């Protein structure tokens, strides 16, 4: 027997595909109704009526205490609740990292901005949906168009002379540059997937917690630059450190041992909203922020209509 056969057998044993599963769902709805009714909640939801009574409702009388216990359990250590200590703040950030990773698994939007002395220096907006990605880079110089990169169904599209061009497969675009579609996605997934957040949470010193007016919580502290700008490379013969999304780390941020200020903002729903890193002096102040939105709710990018085929620049044979 090969591996697929044993897993096929496992999948065939899934209770969802068995007779009677729909009835179990209906019975579950009954139990929920009974539970909520017995909770005496005047605002109880009116679940859609089921089609027919097939299975009896289980006794739910004793489970209110259990529900209360679960609620209490979930409340313990929630972000910002009652001035948590450093230990619970670390746990809250790690929990947010896990929840955010799950939210971002399917789709999301990340806006990356680097500012220097309050002026936007560079930035990219990345939207992803499964393996499809659209990245829009801010123009490097005023008056220039920003860069556009689109990956839909395994085809990469770029903009050339104002028109979409088919560029080929994601693997064929500037491999190793840190800015291929796959590398964008890897950077997004690393940040959003909790790896960066856990790294920051585990190593941050002087962690503080601040409740914001909109119900979100800001967790701040200092963190070694090398944990954020982790990639190293060379530019103009000089060694550099690179932030996720391919941006060069300047000044202090180029020194992996330097301590930078980092703030992770977690929304009231427990999802990470923003990672912000600041460094430098009043004469040369930098910020690097990644803001996440529409996690799990970003629509898939569409392939452009009538793209030009990639011009064949190989020597005529």
């Amino acid at each position, binding site marked *: 027997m090969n591996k697929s056969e044993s897993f096929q057998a496992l999948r065939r044993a899934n209770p*969802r595909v068995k007779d009677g599963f729909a009835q179990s769902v209906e019975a579950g709805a009954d139990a929920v109704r009974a539970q909520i009714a017995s909770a005496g909640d005047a605002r109880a939801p009116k679940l859609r009526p089921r089609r027919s009574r097939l299975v009896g409702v289980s006794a739910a009388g004793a489970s209110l205490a259990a529900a209360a216990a679960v609620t209490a359990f979930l409340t313990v250590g929630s972000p910002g609740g009652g001035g948590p200590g450093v230990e619970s703040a670390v746990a809250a950030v790690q929990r947010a990292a896990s929840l955010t990773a799950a939210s971002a698994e399917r789709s999301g939007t990340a806006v990356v901005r680097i500012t220097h002395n309050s002026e936007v220096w560079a930035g990219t907006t990345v939207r992803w949906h499964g393996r499809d990605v659209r990245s829009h880079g801010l123009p490097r110089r005023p008056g220039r168009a920003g860069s556009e990169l689109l990956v839909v169904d395994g085809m990469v599209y770029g903009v050339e002379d104002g028109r979409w061009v088919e560029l080929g497969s994601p693997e064929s675009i500037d491999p190793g540059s840190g800015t291929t579609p796959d590398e964008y996605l890897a950077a997004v997934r690393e940040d959003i997937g909790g790896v960066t957040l856990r790294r920051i949470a585990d190593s941050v010193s002087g962690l503080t917690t601040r409740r914001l007016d909109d119900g979100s919580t800001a967790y701040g502290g200092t963190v070694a630059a090398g944990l954020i700008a982790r990639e190293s490379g060379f530019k103009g013969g000089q060694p550099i450190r690179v932030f996720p999304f391919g941006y060069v780390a300047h000044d202090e941020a180029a020194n992996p041992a330097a301590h930078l200020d980092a703030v992770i903002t977690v929304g009231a729903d427990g999802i990470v909203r923003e990672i912000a890193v600041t460094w430098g002096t009043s004469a040369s102040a930098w910020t690097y922020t990644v803001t996440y939105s529409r996690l799990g709710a970003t629509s898939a990018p569409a392939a452009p209509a009538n793209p030009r085929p990639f011009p064949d620049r190989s020597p005529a044979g």
Partner: protein
Amino acid sequence: MRQSESERTRRFDALFAAYSPDIVAYCGWRAPSASDAQDAVADVFLTAWRRLDQLPEGDAARVWLYATARRVIANQRRSSRRRVALQERLALEAPSRPQEPLSPNRKETLVHAALRGLGPRDREVLLLAEWEGLSPAQIAAVLGCLTVTARGRLHRARRRFQAVFEALLAREENAQPRREAAVRPRTTTQAS
């Protein structure tokens, strides 16, 4: 920001319609009995109703419900350990019942026997992936661990499941010819 009552009700209805099959299925295989599973489903959605304002959107809500269901069932288990012990003992005795010829149903029995042969952690992570269709990141959120840890646990659980299942299957198939020989009619010693 707090949602209005109608928004809350609408959201809860949508949540229940979208995810109750998932939570019923999960509680069905995690809880020690059908009635415990129903109670767990009820507890999960009651908690969701009470905490609706804090529930994340999209797929994260599904993961939140799984994580809550996991805690509810853990609480149930703590409060009824003796009953669970009895049920687990009965479940372990199940494979020793008389066996039918190997059929799709028999294979399913072997699947369940193989699952019982795994440790609880392996079984949980394997079924979250194979039956609930969760990704490693989502499993990590349910279990409260790193994605890389969930991925590792899943890899090991898959390997162990395959090994246990194949061993059970081989034993079953080896037993088949002996069983057939034992029931073959004797033709050479008919009484005259």
